[in-house]
């Protein structure tokens, strides 16, 4: 098992290495000049070239990429003399639009993304799984039909509509203040302010995911209940309660680990729309700004690699957890 995990981690690094190359390649192919962008419309060619040098964009693309890789391990220094800027390792580069090292920008954004992802995750797992179990137990009743409606609405309503509706609703009820919304409040010093900052974003994100998890749980539980070993359990006198919670759910919920891990890992890379709607300056908000407004390659690079690392890491966790749950997988 340990050998397997080490192998997987090695592959993860290879994957991230290749990914960084691909992002650089795409960057080189896009016909936008960040040096020009950095100094407005009326800009003399001399200033553009000076900026290009300062940004480290006047060397071949492969060399830029190599400097990036080196910077991850050694840190990077930009400019000379009085204007010198140093980013300590692991340096993803320097974000000129933000006037800060990318690592620092991401470190500031990450608490928002992490809080959003964690809260939404717990909420949707709680709602989705319990609603799914309930619907499966009451199959064919009005509760089941209610769950179908919930699944339909939750999975077909786009998150920006859902988010806006919730935002507007909360605003009209004076539960959200657009001016202070999105400034970081420590949960230790002001728990209420902290919750108010996130609760509606959590609900938005959780509703969309809970719909999927309700459907998954319901169909898995129903499918498992027709398995032969469920009949065996009944035949030996296991109570209906234990048939469900011990024999059925163990099998029915195992595949959900895969979904949950990947969804959570994906969210740690930033929930772009939800963060945008609720003014939360997380990684998603950061990266969409970097792509659409600033053309800020170092930041794009940083958020992309960070998101990919989370995804790969949770993929690994899922595989290990699954092997732990299902003894048939464990052997291989």
């Amino acid at each position, binding site marked *: 098992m340990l050998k397997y995990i080490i192998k997987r981690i090695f592959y993860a690094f290879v994957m991230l290495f290749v990914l960084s190359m691909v992002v650089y390649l795409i960057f080189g192919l896009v016909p936008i000049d960040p040096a020009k962008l950095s100094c407005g419309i009326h800009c003399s060619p001399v200033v553009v070239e000076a900026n290009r040098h300062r940004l480290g964009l006047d060397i071949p693309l492969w060399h830029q990429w190599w400097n990036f890789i080196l910077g991850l391990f050694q840190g990077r220094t930009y400019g000379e003399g009085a204007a010198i800027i140093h980013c300590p390792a692991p340096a993803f580069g320097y974000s000129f639009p933000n006037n800060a090292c990318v690592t620092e920008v991401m470190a500031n954004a990450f608490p928002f993304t992490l809080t959003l992802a964690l809260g939404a995750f717990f909420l949707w797992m709680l709602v989705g799984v319990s609603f799914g179990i309930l619907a499966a137990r009451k199959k064919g009743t009005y509760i089941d039909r209610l769950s179908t409606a919930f699944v339909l609405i939750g999975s077909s309503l786009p998150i920006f509509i859902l988010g806006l509706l919730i935002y507007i609703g909360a605003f009209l009820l004076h539960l959200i203040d657009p001016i202070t919304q999105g400034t970081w409040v420590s949960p230790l010093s002001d728990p209420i302010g902290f919750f108010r900052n996130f609760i509606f974003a959590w609900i938005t994100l959780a509703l969309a995911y809970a719909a999927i998890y309700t459907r998954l749980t319901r169909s898995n539980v129903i499918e498992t209940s027709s398995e032969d070993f469920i009949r065996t359990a009944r035949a030996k*006198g296991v109570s209906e309660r234990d048939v469900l919670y011990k024999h059925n759910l163990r099998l029915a919920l195992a595949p959900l680990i895969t979904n949950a891990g990947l969804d959570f890992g994906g969210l740690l890379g930033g929930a772009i729309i939800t963060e945008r709607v609720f003014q939360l300056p997380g990684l998603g908000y950061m990266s969409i700004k970097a792509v659409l407004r600033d053309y800020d390659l170092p930041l794009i690079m940083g958020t992309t690699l960070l998101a990919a690392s989370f995804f790969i890491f949770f993929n690994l966790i899922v595989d290990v957890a699954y092997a732990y749950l299902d003894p048939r997988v464990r052997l291989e």
Partner: protein
Amino acid sequence: MSHLLEVKNLSVSFPTDDGLVQATDDLSFHLDLGETLAIVGESGCGKSVSSMAIMGLHNPKSTQISGQVLINTVLGRTDVITASSEEVRKLRGGTVSMIFQDPMSALHPYFTVGDQISEAWLLHNDGTKSDARKKTIEMLDLVGIPDAKSRVDSYPHQFSGGMRQRVMIGMALINQPKILIADEPTTALDVTVQSQILMLLKEMQREFNMAVILITHDLGVVAEVADRVNVMYAGRLVEEGGVNEIYRNPVHPYTIGLLASVPRVDQAHGTRLKTIPGQPPSLISLPSGCAFEPRCEFAKYVPGEICKVTRPEVELKLIDHHARCHLTAQEVRSHL
């Protein structure tokens, strides 16, 4: 003395979109201490449905059940059909146990065989987990699992089909039930393993003095292990009697056809295997008369339309030998 198990006028039906599926119809039979009763018939004749009813395993929401399933023990008499679900739950796995056709899918893939057997013991006994484990190892040893002490912590997928069926048997017998229902216990197994499992069942039956209901369509298996035979057709009991009696003097045309369709080694080379022409009737629209009449070769000997119109009752045909047919035993035999 009353019988260990009495099934009286058991009718089980399932409402579906196409109509009511009459899975068993007015089924009555009994089982005594220590005997082996074989229930024989083709797929869909109601063998498994009736055994599920004895276990009280039908979902009351999707099943209509009438009649009685009486189980008499030293503790008293219980009617499985009317008893509370808690009473029936205590009966299951304790007094009445069951093993199933496919040991591959009948064991939970995520739990060790030890855990699964221990669970059955803990459900019906007061004791600690280590008591249960000790019992489980003893039982695995008894059903012929080599090296039971270490195999107790193995998972089902680490066993072969025959070994899994042994585990199933061990699980069913851990509480020393009075009745064991074996629903086609050897169908999914290799021929060599089949006989081993049958031997094991026989051995266990002697060891624990239980009554066994063996559900099968394999007449060879029946001849080998059964004391009495129930032949079922389209949800009804058509013939009932001692195993030798049924094999030597079958009186119901369906049983006669069934026995004739078993391939025999001593048959002359080149003779065609006999078959029963036609298909069993749909359980949704059973004929009002005899369910077997459309396929019956003997119906022409009954005057008029009696077979088509009147449903025959189960009658005594020979000594200790009942059948559901309008013809007498002598009439049937004279036309063979």
